[in-house]
């Protein structure tokens, strides 16, 4: 502050023409966005800056397999989340059946379970020594694996099933909202033209909801690309796994960066699909506010069928895993376990808490700077900083680690030269580097939540405050902060919970011997010590319920608005795991 005042003068003298472009809000925002965007840019620079021979080598060896597997995984998860999410979304939106009000929010619960947790839980249940196969053997008198066929959970198919079960809520939430917004007139017109409810769903409701469904699937697939725990545990050779393999096992930084940039192509496609659909959504929803549809009433056997259909993803994606974790945790509880749980838990709390605070502070600064200045430069920059959410953790790890290492080496070399002392690694492998990585990745969550909540405050409020003599800082403190407090808390919670779940970046970037709950689960699971993994996993799942509660509150608010206004609410604004 003092420096910027010295250089650029305070507001009273901010009257010079250039101050329009170089006031402290703009400069701060530009610096912050550059820091956040640096890792993403770094991946491209490293990938393109190194020799072509590594590319050629990668192409001949591992890359085609990684790409193929990743594509297969994405297609599988895309289909899985589409069927589960759209199906349940439509049932809940269009039908009335026993328990609908509970299913409305309960179907979101699987979102609380990270892929790497559900993966080891099902392995525990379904592997040869597990209870399911044991029961089958007892029932049919089989004695060895050769006596029967049982699906292998540790496979591509298994990974698809696991990820679909925990990621379908994205599609559910968005498609449900889209179905609710659909005009009764259109659907009834189709009914009078001779379509039954099911054909109506397939030929009218789904096409109308297509943009929302595509957004939901894009978000689910971004999460799929980010997943490291599941594919690692199941040894599914995706690009994410490839980055780790080439980087850590083959020691090729450039190779890892090149795989990472390949992955960014996938990410880019998803971002484009999402953005395009968001634009489409405006047209599909266009028209006058329309009458809401009346829910069809399901009764008799059909009602039972609907309930069962909704129960399947809920129980497989949440109830069963949590039950297993609970019983494991209770059985496994002893003093050793408590010790091995507490330190990682404290680490997780500290990391995620610090990341949440920072992400909210940075997000607030950026969002307010854009509101204040509205310059194109800032808008573009903050769009770029918002991309972190789509970039998989493994890719970001490459983008954060390599520049930091270079910086450390440069500082070390410089001080050796002028003072003959070695500074060693200043930032690499420290908690600060890790927190920075978290902020880069999760900034979009806080920035998005704060931006949209600021957008709900009419600009004339700012104008009124300014003409009454308040500086921009005072407007933020006395007007905006009190008004958006709730959203800032939500934003902090979203970042916090994603931090608790974060695995790929943490694994690579954490300081030596520094464990979080997620890495703890990952290590125990990799060693097949499922019971030991369960307390940490349970803790992650329980914190994961927090954002679900926030989502439910947003859903309620939308429903109230819909009822109050009798109109459509455009865009529930779900981002990757959050509210926009």
């Amino acid at each position, binding site marked *: 502050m003092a420096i910027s005042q010295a250089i650029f003068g305070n507001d009273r003298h901010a009257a010079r023409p250039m101050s*329009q472009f170089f006031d402290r809000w703009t400069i701060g925002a530009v610096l912050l966005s550059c820091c956040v965007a640096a890792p993403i840019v770094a991946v491209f620079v490293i990938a393109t800056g190194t020799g072509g021979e590594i590319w050629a080598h990668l192409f001949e060896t591992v890359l085609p397999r990684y790409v193929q597997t990743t594509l297969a995984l994405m297609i599988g998860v895309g289909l899985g989340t589409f069927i589960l999410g759209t199906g349940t979304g439509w049932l809940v939106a269009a039908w009335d059946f026993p328990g609908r009000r509970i299913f409305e929010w309960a179907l979101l619960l699987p979102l609380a379970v990270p892929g790497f947790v559900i993966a080891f839980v099902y392995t525990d249940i379904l592997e040869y020594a597990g209870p399911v196969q044991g029961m089958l053997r007892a029932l049919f008198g089989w004695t060895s694996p050769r006596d029967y066929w049982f699906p292998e959970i540790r496979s591509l198919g298994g990974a698809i099933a696991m990820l679909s079960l925990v990621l379908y809520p994205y599609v559910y939430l968005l498609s449900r909202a889209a179905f609710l917004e659909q005009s009764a007139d259109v659907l009834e017109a189709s009914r009078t033209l001779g379509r039954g409810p099911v054909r109506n769903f397939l030929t009218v409701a789904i096409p109308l909801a297509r943009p929302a469904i595509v957004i939901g699937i894009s978000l689910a697939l971004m999460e799929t690309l980010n997943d490291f725990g599941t594919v690692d545990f199941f040894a599914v050779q995706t690009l994410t796994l490839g980055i780790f393999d080439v980087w850590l096992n083959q020691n090729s930084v450039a190779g890892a960066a090149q795989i990472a940039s390949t992955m960014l192509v996938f990410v880019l496609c998803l971002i484009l699909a999402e953005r395009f659909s968001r634009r489409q959504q405006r047209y599909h929803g266009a028209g006058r506010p329309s009458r809401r549809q009346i829910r069809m009433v399901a009764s008799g056997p059909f009602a039972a069928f609907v309930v069962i259909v909704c129960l399947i993803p809920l129980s497989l994606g949440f109830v069963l895993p949590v039950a297993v974790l609970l019983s494991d945790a209770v059985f496994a509880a002893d003093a050793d376990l408590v010790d091995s749980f507490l330190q990682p838990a404290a680490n997780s709390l500290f990391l995620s808490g610090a990341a949440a605070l920072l992400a909210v502070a940075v997000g607030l600064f950026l969002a307010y700077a854009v509101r204040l200045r509205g310059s194109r430069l800032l808008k573009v920059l903050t769009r770029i900083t918002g991309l972190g959410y789509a970039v998989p953790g493994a890719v970001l790890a490459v983008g954060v680690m390599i520049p930091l290492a270079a910086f450390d080496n440069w500082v070390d070399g410089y001080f050796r030269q002028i003072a003959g002392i070695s500074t060693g690694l200043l930032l690499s492998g420290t908690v600060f580097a890790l927190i920075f990585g978290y902020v880069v990745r999760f900034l979009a969550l806080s920035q998005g939540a704060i931006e949209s909540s600021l957008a709900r405050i009419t600009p004339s409020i700012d104008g009124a405050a300014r003409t009454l003599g308040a500086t921009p800082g005072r407007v933020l403190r006395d007007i905006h902060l009190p008004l958006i407090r709730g959203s800032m808390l939500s934003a902090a919670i979203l970042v916090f919970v994603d931090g608790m779940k974060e695995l790929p970046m943490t694994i690579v970037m954490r300081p030596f011997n520094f464990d979080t709950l997620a890495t703890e689960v990952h290590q125990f699971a990799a060693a097949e010590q499922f019971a030991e993994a369960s307390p940490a996993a349970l803790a992650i799942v329980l914190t994961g319920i927090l954002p679900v509660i926030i989502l439910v509150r947003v859903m309620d608010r939308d429903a109230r608005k819909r009822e109050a206004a009798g109109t459509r609410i455009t865009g529930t604004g779900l981002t990757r795991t959050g509210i926009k």
Partner: protein
Amino acid sequence: MIGLEVKNLSHAFGSHKVIDDVSLTVGPGKIICLLGPSGCGKTTLLRLAAGLERVQSGTIKVDGVKVADRKLHIPPEQRHVGLMFQDYALFPHLTVGENVAFGLEGRNVGDRKSRIDEVLGQVNMLDYRDAYPHVLSGGQQQRVALARALAPKPGVMLLDEPFSGLDEALRIQIREETLSVLREAGTAVLMVTHNPEEALFMSDRMLVMGPGGRILQAGAPDDVYACPKDPFVATFFGRTNRLMGVVSDGVVATPLGKFPAPHYSEGCKVQVIFRTHSVHLEINGSNGIPVDVVSARPMGRDTRVQFKVPGRGDLPVFLSRVRGRFPETPSGKVTARIVPEEAFVFHRDGDAS
């Protein structure tokens, strides 16, 4: 000078010009209305004066001090200019009293409290000091917004469509109250509106802004209304009719009569614009042009009569507003007469409809 001084102000959004070389001054105790259609740069002009928008060209002075030109931009919080927003922009998390207190920061507690009571008293909202904005009616919110803007005693007060959010009956009452509060405050007032009646009622001086952001006419409200200098101004105060004609011997002859056109050259193509209530219709009258009534719809106090000139299918149907009742099928011949001094003659290239 004390008050607001705007000189040669121009502003564009991209290639869309919204303010075109506007100059105006507002002295203390004066109420100036800027009247114009929606979409012209009225609100932008207020935002420029308040400092919420940067000046592209021209200068703005407040109380004799330059606050903005192409290079200079004093931020709004240092201009001491009050602005009342169309949507009132009350701070929803602050009570009425706290809203008013917002602009009084830096004064001691006693001063602040007495000023709050004073302005809230002026707008009759003292009883609501501890209420939150959302429990207030539209009219009450408007009063609080006015009190809040006036509380710091700004040298210049800007009002952006101050009555547009109110329903018809309330509007008239609030308008009178606002006028007396502003007169009492004695500050320089620039008010923006698209409602001609409001501008006529409120202003000491009126400026009419055209769609391109140019000031088409400025003057006392009565003069502007009675002697429009531009077809746009003539048509802005309500429904009008238009006739075409050619000037001959300082007179333009039209199917509805002859009108003096002393300042136009011989053979000049002109248009004649007259308001609907400037047409007098008579049944079995002696003077005027015979016309056929097309329809007559009662509108309460007035009757809206459409008529045409017989045998002139090329002319449009004309509209008049007649005091009292008028029969749809009159018992005798109907004649129309236009009050000559209420018919305005303009060059035909002046665009108006």
